[in-house]
């Protein structure tokens, strides 16, 4: 299944993204980002089903949560 990654500036930011998404019935997992997505090393993101990408974007864009890029992957990072 295609997965979608949302990058975050910190682990706490990733946790808050997960928290907000789950409150909106979007399943989300905090993951360490692959090195190719982390210019400064050691970053976190949130993995969601790509089917929920639009809904997640809609939720986050009207929240006070800080989030980075949306990246589509073939099978997630795990």
């Amino acid at each position, binding site marked *: 299944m295609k997965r979608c990654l949302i990058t975050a500036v910190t682990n706490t930011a990733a946790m808050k993204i997960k928290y907000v998404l789950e409150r909106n019935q979007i399943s989300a997992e905090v993951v360490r980002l692959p090195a190719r997505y982390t210019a400064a*090393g050691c970053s976190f993101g949130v993995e969601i089903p790509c089917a929920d990408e639009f809904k997640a974007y809609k939720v986050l864009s009207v929240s006070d949560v800080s989030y980075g890029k949306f990246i589509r992957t073939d099978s997630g990072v795990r």
Partner: protein
Amino acid sequence: MVYLDNAATTFPKPRAVYDALALSMRECAGNPGRGGHILSRNSAKALFDSRVGVASLLGSSSPERVAFTHNATEALNIAIKGLARKNSHILISDIEHNSVRRVAVKLQEQGIEYSVYSSAKSAEDILNSVRENIRPDTQMLVACHKSNICSRELPLAELGRLCKKYGIYFVVDASQSAGSCNIDIGKVNADAICAPGHKGLFGIMGSGFVLFGEGVEGDKIKTMCEGGNGVNSMDEQMPSALPERLEAGTLPMPAIYTLKAGIEFVRRVGAEEIGNKESVLMARAKDMLLHTKGIEVYCPEENGGGVLLFNFKNIDCEEAAELLDKGKICVRAGLHCSPLAHKTIGTPSGGAIRVSFGYFNTLKDIDCLYKTVKDILAGVY
């Protein structure tokens, strides 16, 4: 044994706190925000849930604005030194603990002066004292919400409004009030609220926190400690985002996890209910000691709170505390790290005996205290 030193740290803790400690050692044993494995992820979730607990208890919807520390002193250092600007002026009250007073004194090395405002009498008197001491270069006001040696309480909402009017930072030391008073960071217009995890919030010793208000930008807070935190490791500087900006090194996860359990207990019982119970116990003890010949009670006119200060008229306070210990009563004597507050209320140079009540004390404990005091006066010990 009767434990009456809850202002130093609460004892006992709620059952759920002991259970949480055991659980944290098994299931949250990984370092949060470091690895991607299950134990690290469990810890990261527990850590975030703890931030949510602290934030929501204090009326904030921004868990990322909660930075964990090892105690309230560290939290106050981060808030005050982190927000203070060179060559400015700060205001502290005359009941501040050394965790504020010594910070203010240290800041003088950076050209930051401080003045002391009065905590006496009414809210209006306190505000007038602030107005008299405020200067064009005043940048911050620090307020001890509740004293650690007496019932005195500063009017946070009024002070917050005044700070907002003057455009200065408002930093609150809630060390003695978090868990026994309802505090809402938005309603009191605070820029930072600092507290320990192990007092009224019932965690084990080893945690504290600072919650920053919405108006404080993370990158405007100077860091007190730099190091690794699992974020952007290639960067030479600490991240600008809260809370990682202020959390260098491994956090005391077992203490933080128990703090979460303690906060859940406080929310279940209600901070107001806890505060009311402590006040009743304090009033009963005060009533008994006020009518005991050979005992001097300080600030007898002040009500509320769970702290009572007294002395035996003919026994040094430290010796008296030892005698109380022989009678299996745990109290704390001396200056309680608050020489400024002791001077303000007029205790002798050596200080006094403090009894401080907690939610788990009972009226029977007060009877034991009273009996032991009478025994000491009668020369039994």
